[in-house]
């Protein structure tokens, strides 16, 4: 049985889709079967970031409504044979997603894949609550910036109350992924530090993704950054995060302007 992970944030534009694609590809590179699922009905983008936008025939709503079978809607990645995408519908109404239907699809995916990674839409409406509803664990993507941190806190509250796991009285494991981190600005006190965000949200850190031009380049090319920009700093950070997600213990590397001292200082503490 695979693990269902929701990638969520509350706020839009913080890097949910980029992170879903990057982590999905990183896990698939280790040979595990991975499916990334786009829950953003009406505003789908995971297909574009994955470079599969011209291969979408059926989507999540088609499967929920029984118009298509699950294997018909799954798109296999052209670069990694263990990576699949289940796209969202671009045209249909998001009300077409029913809780029973999603439960069925998630259950089916869970039996076929090692990892089911759900890319949540922004906000706290139906799409976002359905994306987290059946998750085993959650990745909260936050930027070191006030509105993103506030929204993350709200999402953490929802994960602890509105998910099947929470309703059963179980604890939902949560991982914090800090994206668009600018070490130079943080060092100058112009940006919340990793420690600030950790202290405020108090959930364990999965990784820190440095702000980088490579991220835009990867989305321009339609490839997860862990495939097309493997040597870049954000790709390394995502690869490490994926390994931590899989349970490996890896020293936390907080990006720093001057490598060495600060990495040593923070690395020991956060790992």
């Amino acid at each position, binding site marked *: 049985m695979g693990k269902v992970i929701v990638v969520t944030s509350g706020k839009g534009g913080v890097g949910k889709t980029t992170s879903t694609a990057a982590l999905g590809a990183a896990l698939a590179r280790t040979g595990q079967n991975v499916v990334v699922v786009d829950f953003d009905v009406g505003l789908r983008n995971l297909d574009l970031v994955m470079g599969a936008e011209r291969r979408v025939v059926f989507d999540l709503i088609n499967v929920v409504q029984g118009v298509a079978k699950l294997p018909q809607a799954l798109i296999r990645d052209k670069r990694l044979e263990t990576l699949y995408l289940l796209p969202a519908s671009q045209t249909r109404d998001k009300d077409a997603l029913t809780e029973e239907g999603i439960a069925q699809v998630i259950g089916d995916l869970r039996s076929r894949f090692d990892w089911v990674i759900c890319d949540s839409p922004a906000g706290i409406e139906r799409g976002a609550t359905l994306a987290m509803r059946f998750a085993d664990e959650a990745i909260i993507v936050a930027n070191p*910036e006030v509105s993103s941190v506030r929204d993350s806190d709200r999402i953490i509250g929802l994960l602890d109350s509105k998910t099947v796991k929470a309703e059963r009285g179980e604890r939902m494991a949560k991982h914090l992924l800090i994206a668009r981190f600018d070490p130079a600005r943080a060092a100058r006190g*112009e940006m919340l530090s990793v420690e600030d965000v950790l202290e405020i949200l108090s959930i364990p850190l999965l990784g820190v993704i440095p702000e980088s031009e490579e991220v835009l380049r990867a989305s321009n090319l339609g490839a997860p950054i862990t495939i097309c920009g493997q040597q870049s700093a954000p790709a390394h950070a995502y690869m490490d995060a994926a390994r931590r997600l899989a349970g490996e213990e890896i020293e936390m590397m907080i990006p720093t302007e001057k490598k060495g001292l600060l990495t040593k200082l923070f690395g020991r503490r956060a790992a």
Partner: protein
Amino acid sequence: MRLFRFLKPVSSAPVARERLQILLEYERRMVSQSSLITTLKEEILAVVSRHVSVDPEKIHVSVDSGDGFSTLAVDIQIPNRAGALGR
């Protein structure tokens, strides 16, 4: 330029941090209080309506947080029809 920047404090991050800490402490309390009130309301309504017919709209539950203690106020309006009370 560098020199002036050095003299003038530019760190806005501590301000962000402090504002967030104050705001989130308040918001967390509000969210947990509103979910507590919803639960109390539902359960009180269930118990009371076993004996008296009550309009779900006519029940008000509120919590007043004081310094040493908080007050829970429950206000339920019961219609004065014959047989509504003391079944």
